[in-house]
């Protein structure tokens, strides 16, 4: 199922975004623009503000200062569920599946959330599970899945109705090298076949360096480097803040 959801003129942009929580600055004047068809890595040590930035880009967190723009229009006041309908989807660190529901229902919910009727949502969900290789698990309770499959269901849920942008929050956490290879292939397939722009938060450097064309490095809420994997790896500030420790 090849769907070209990405429209090449589309952009998801954060402009001079600052986010403060009761005086604590979580994000400090960050700029970034994502376009369909690219895979952007978002890295940084723990507490750097990566998830906060993703929350801001997906409507879960309104920036204190600055703006979030989808195709040039401000979406800083748009709710998370509305932004999903406008084509910005995400996954979560902890999976956050609907545990008491079946795998296919988990994906179906997103179809229904996108405005499909239940039968149409079920059909789309089934197709998507087939595409992602989980059709044999469709009727299993989501709470009973191993974490690798859990991540896949999360991705399937984020993919229904072809979003323009998909933000993945640490999809490889806890995975073995072999499992990481599968995940990297999946992320590339999503980009190639759905054409969406992907933002990948990841600690696993093998995954980040393996699939991302561009990398944005945060430390304590500030941008410390941006560039290709090769450039970022050589950047002294990055080495000091992040890679040096590893």
């Amino acid at each position, binding site marked *: 199922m090849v769907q070209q959801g990405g429209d090449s003129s589309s952009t998801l942009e954060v402009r001079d975004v600052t986010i403060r929580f009761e005086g604590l600055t979580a994000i400090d004047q960050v700029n970034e623009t994502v376009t369909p068809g690219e895979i952007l890595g978002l890295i940084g040590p723990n507490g750097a503000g990566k998830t906060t930035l993703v929350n801001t880009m997906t409507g*879960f967190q309104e920036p204190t200062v600055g703006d979030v723009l989808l195709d040039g229009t401000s979406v800083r006041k748009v709710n*998370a*569920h509305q932004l999903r309908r406008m084509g910005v989807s995400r996954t*979560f660190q902890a999976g956050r599946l*609907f545990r008491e529901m079946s795998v296919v229902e988990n994906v179906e919910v997103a179809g229904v*959330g996108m405005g499909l009727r*239940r039968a149409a949502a079920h059909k789309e969900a089934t197709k998507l599970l087939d595409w992602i290789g989980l059709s044999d698990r469709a009727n299993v309770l989501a709470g009973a899945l191993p974490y690798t499959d859990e991540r896949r269901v999360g991705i399937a849920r984020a993919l229904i109705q072809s979003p323009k942008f998909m933000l993945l929050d640490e999809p490889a956490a806890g995975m073995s090298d072999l499992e990481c290879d599968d995940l990297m292939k999946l992320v590339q397939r999503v980009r190639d076949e759905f054409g969406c722009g992907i933002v990948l938060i990841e600690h696993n450097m093998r995954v980040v360096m393996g699939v991302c064309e561009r990398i944005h490095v945060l430390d304590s809420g500030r941008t410390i480097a941006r560039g290709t994997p090769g450039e970022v790896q050589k950047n002294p500030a990055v080495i000091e803040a992040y890679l040096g420790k590893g």
Partner: protein
Amino acid sequence: MEPKSPLGHMVREVWPLIILSVGLLLVVVVIQSFGDRIVSQSLTEGLIRLVVVIGLYIFIGNSGLISFGHIGFMMIGAYATAWQTMDPMTKDIFIPGLPAYLLANSHHWLIATIIGGLIAAIAACISGLAMMRLSGIAASIGTFALFMSFYSLYLQWSTWTAGQSSLVGIPVTTTPWVAFWFCIVAMIGAFVYSRSKFGLALRASREDEVAAKAAGVNVTGERVISFTLSAFFVGMAGGLYGHFLGLLTVDTFYLPMTFITLSMLVVGGMQSLSGAVVGTIVLSFVIELLRKAEKGFSLGETSISLPASSAEVGLGIILLLILIFRPSGFTRNSEIYWPFKPKVAVTEVTHRQS
């Protein structure tokens, strides 16, 4: 194994609904066969409560939010229905504050009950738009605050409700069979809703509110839809109750009614329609037995009677035991299983969802 014929498939789809309706029908037929007027009255009361509990299930079961406020909607429905069905002469005397149209006219009880339910639904929709942004315990306290406001308002609003005294002269039209048919309609409504895209989306928010939002679900909107639909059924149950008692007092719709109906849902299993039905039937029997025992029964020469309020205490103890030992209720939050040719994985899942 999937049934081959389309009919077989349909039967399987609506299986819990069929088994619950038939089961309820049997209960009604057996109890009616006693031919005892008092027993038949308890039956009617139990069936009206079942409509309330099914209404509660529509909201609580699918949203995961506990509402302490639904009896307020029952009260709204009860009075709104009585305003329409009472004899104009009686209305002139007891509730002269009604608008001229109501003072001069009466509606058939069935139409009046449906309109009463709609008025309760409108009240729920308006209050829900403000309240359903809240989650968890804040939402529950919100519904309780709303309930207390409605209660106090109706207590003071004497030109419409007769205030602290009773509103008498309501035609008695609710027979056991009338209440039974309302139960069937409520069950169909609850079943269709929970299988619909609205029910699915709301259950997703019950499992994980944040993930539901990320899946495009308008959580507040879905809650308001469910709150409104559930208030519609609870409101109609209020209409039935007034036309069962023949009189209304505001105090009828207070904490004891809230406690009994919520207990029934919790004991049965909050997240399934089967739980609502089973919990109501089982606890109604228990309450009746304890009430009988309060009045006393004789064993040979000695007569034994339990102290007053034993029913309430007994109910409280059962509720606590269920909460401690089986928090998902008698039904473990599942619907009643498709009994033929079971295929483990499929049955488990299709029937777990309510």
